[in-house]
């Protein structure tokens, strides 16, 4: 059963979580829902839990984690839950009272310990649960809408209340990492309440957002199943960006591709109530466009012209990576920009030039093997968080077995079940893969920006720990940060789309990389409609609006940017070679 999505005609619950693969339009549809409800007189709170949120671009307003009123939409309050900022505030509540009372060296030691990714996660999670459980917020707003990070991250966030609730219940020797939280027992009540709220279908809806394309639909199915497993059973599906007509080759192939994906809809999504949002000729930024998203199209053709004399292609980027002999190459950017395809094409290109290449992904939702097959010149791997956790637990236990009795081991096992042990396991796996750069070129397809930033963030803070640690540190971990800092070895390719949000996000990413001391030269603009020469009215309106963003990237990257045209077919296997011509 499918109909157009109109929040006013649907009975909506108080809490709504928008989730889905990167680039499917979670933020657009969540914002449109929030604005439509607020316009109809409801009091609405919209919260982003994405570490790389772009709500501030959409509303063109500086946001914080407490909530800011939007002046064009009187009933709407928007908050941005930045985990790093939450961790900073949390750290200050712990350390603040001791400033001037304990020596600076002591405070620094505490600060370092409280800078790990455990703390970031705990702090972000605490704020998140506050928004679900706080009674004042509950009475003040009719609707509380969460625009969440791409699926992997959200699954983790929504599963945490149960994971931590179990961990606290089963833990016999004190609070472990959670000891950082003051008043653990009261936190426990908060987690319990969060779990109950998430599972209550009268209170909470999971809104799965997808494009009419195969990969995001598959991912929506995965999220649907995993979240139903932890009790979030009240679900709906929004399919965003559906084409309703076609009149040239490009628009026809897009239309056909969408129809095929929809008719091949994954089985487990079929019983879920499904709503459609049509493809629009404009970018969804600014309150005016958000208001019209669910109502009407608005075809404005831009008259801007391309400033670059010539636009490099992917092969020029590969040529440069080859000549400068880069050893560690990251593809980074917002979800849905095509990082996996581009990472695979780069691996293929370098391998054709005779390099030995290792292609890997840190994306929990990655599907490298659907894009490219292992060959003689290219080996492949995938950091699987669960498998890495198990591996790390085994390693620690086998070391502990040398000196401990079974009973003592049970005690160690308990700490190994702590939710932050996973972080350390992933970090070590990441270090091990980068270590391969000793002998081959490592191309890394990263998870969407937020996740990647947290990984780099943890690399920085773990590195400080490594420097003063007394335990056994693997060589790979010691070498990781120095290698990432070496511009002769490491290059980050920023991948974006010719649209406002992915470009803004890419610029913030570039800033973060610069702060982290990691080299970036090339930008790649993927899926350009402009380069297809479409004549369809809506698509060419979209294409004309791309020019502004191509010019911005050109200026920003000093001409070191390549453009890849939108391709109607799924690019994989042999067709990857087409990207290299």
């Amino acid at each position, binding site marked *: 059963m499918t109909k157009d999505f109109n929040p006013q005609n649907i009975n909506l619950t108080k809490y709504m979580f928008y989730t889905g693969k990167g680039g499917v339009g979670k933020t657009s549809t969540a914002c449109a829902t929030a604005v439509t409800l607020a316009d109809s007189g409801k009091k609405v709170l919209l919260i982003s839990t994405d570490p790389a949120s772009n709500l501030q671009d959409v509303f063109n307003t500086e946001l914080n984690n407490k909530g800011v009123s939007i002046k064009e939409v009187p009933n709407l309050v928007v908050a941005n839950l930045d985990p790093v900022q939450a961790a900073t505030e949390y750290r200050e509540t*712990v350390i603040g009272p001791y400033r001037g009372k304990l020596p600076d060296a002591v405070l620094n*030691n505490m600060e370092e310990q409280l800078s790990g990714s455990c703390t970031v996660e705990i702090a972000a999670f605490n704020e998140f649960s506050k928004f679900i459980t706080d009674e004042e917020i509950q009475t003040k707003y009719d609707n509380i809408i969460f625009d969440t990070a791409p699926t992997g991250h959200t699954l983790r966030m929504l599963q945490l209340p149960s994971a931590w609730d179990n961990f606290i219940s089963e833990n016999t020797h004190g609070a472990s990492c959670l*000891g950082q939280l003051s008043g653990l027992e009261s936190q426990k009540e908060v987690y319990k309440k969060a779990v109950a709220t998430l599972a209550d279908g009268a209170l909470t809806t999971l809104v799965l957002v997808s494009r009419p394309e195969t990969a995001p639909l598959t991912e929506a199915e995965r999220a649907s199943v995993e979240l139903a497993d932890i009790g979030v059973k009240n679900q709906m599906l929004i399919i965003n960006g559906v084409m309703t007509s076609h009149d040239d080759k490009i628009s026809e192939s897009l239309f056909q591709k969408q129809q095929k994906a929809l008719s091949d809809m994954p089985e487990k999504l079929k019983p879920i109530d499904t709503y459609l949002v049509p493809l629009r000729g404009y970018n969804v930024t600014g309150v005016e466009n958000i208001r019209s998203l669910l109502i009407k199209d608005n075809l404005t053709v831009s008259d801007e012209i391309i400033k670059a004399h010539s636009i490099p292609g992917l092969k020029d980027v590969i040529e440069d990576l080859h000549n400068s002999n880069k050893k560690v190459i990251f593809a980074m950017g917002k979800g849905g920009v095509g990082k996996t395809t581009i990472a695979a094409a780069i691996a293929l290109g370098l391998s054709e030039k005779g390099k030995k290449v290792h292609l890997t992904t840190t994306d929990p939702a990655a599907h490298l093997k659907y894009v490219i097959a292992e060959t003689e010149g290219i080996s492949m791997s995938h950091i699987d968080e669960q498998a890495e956790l198990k591996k790390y637990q085994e390693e620690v236990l086998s070391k502990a077995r040398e000196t401990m009795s079974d009973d*003592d081991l049970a*005690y*160690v096992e308990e*700490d190994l079940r702590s939710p932050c042990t996973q972080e350390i396991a992933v970090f070590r796996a990441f270090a091990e893969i980068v270590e391969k750069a000793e002998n081959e070129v490592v191309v890394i397809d990263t998870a969407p920006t937020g996740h990647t930033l947290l990984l780099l963030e943890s690399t920085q803070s773990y590195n400080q720990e490594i420097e003063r640690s007394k335990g*056994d540190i693997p060589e790979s*971990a010691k070498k990781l940060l120095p290698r990432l800092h070496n511009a002769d070895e490491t290059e980050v390719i920023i991948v974006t789309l010719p649209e406002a949000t992915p470009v803004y996000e890419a610029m913030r990413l570039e800033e973060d990389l610069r702060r982290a001391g990691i080299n970036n030269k090339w930008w790649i603009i993927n899926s350009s409609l402009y380069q297809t020469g479409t004549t369809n009215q809506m698509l060419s309106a979209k294409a004309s609006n791309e020019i502004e963003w191509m010019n911005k990237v050109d200026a920003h990257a000093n001409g070191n940017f390549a453009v890849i045209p939108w391709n109607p077919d799924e690019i994989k296997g042999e067709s990857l070679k087409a990207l290299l011509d």
Partner: protein
Amino acid sequence: MKKITIYEPAMCCPTGLCGVSVDPELLRISTVSNNLKKKGIEIERHNLTNSPMKFMTNKTVNKMINEKGVDELPFTLVDEEVAIVGRYPTNQEIADFLNISVDSFDEEPTTDK
């Protein structure tokens, strides 16, 4: 029986397993203190992250931390007297402080799990 208190550097969990590496000393001390606890003997452990207040209120510790900073942590106090600085006590030392046999907390009868 004498009271053992260990003042430790900032850390995440008592076994140190959340850190970037496994420190066998931390594992040992966690196990020993856990085993003693089952016998009703408690070794107090305070670390900077979880209980900075303890580093303020104990005069001896406060003086030491102000003079020496964090580099010489952990401090072990026995009945409020500084006994060991810069490392964890060995099992034998703990047994001696408590005036018990070291075997009595090494061999732990299995508990039902």
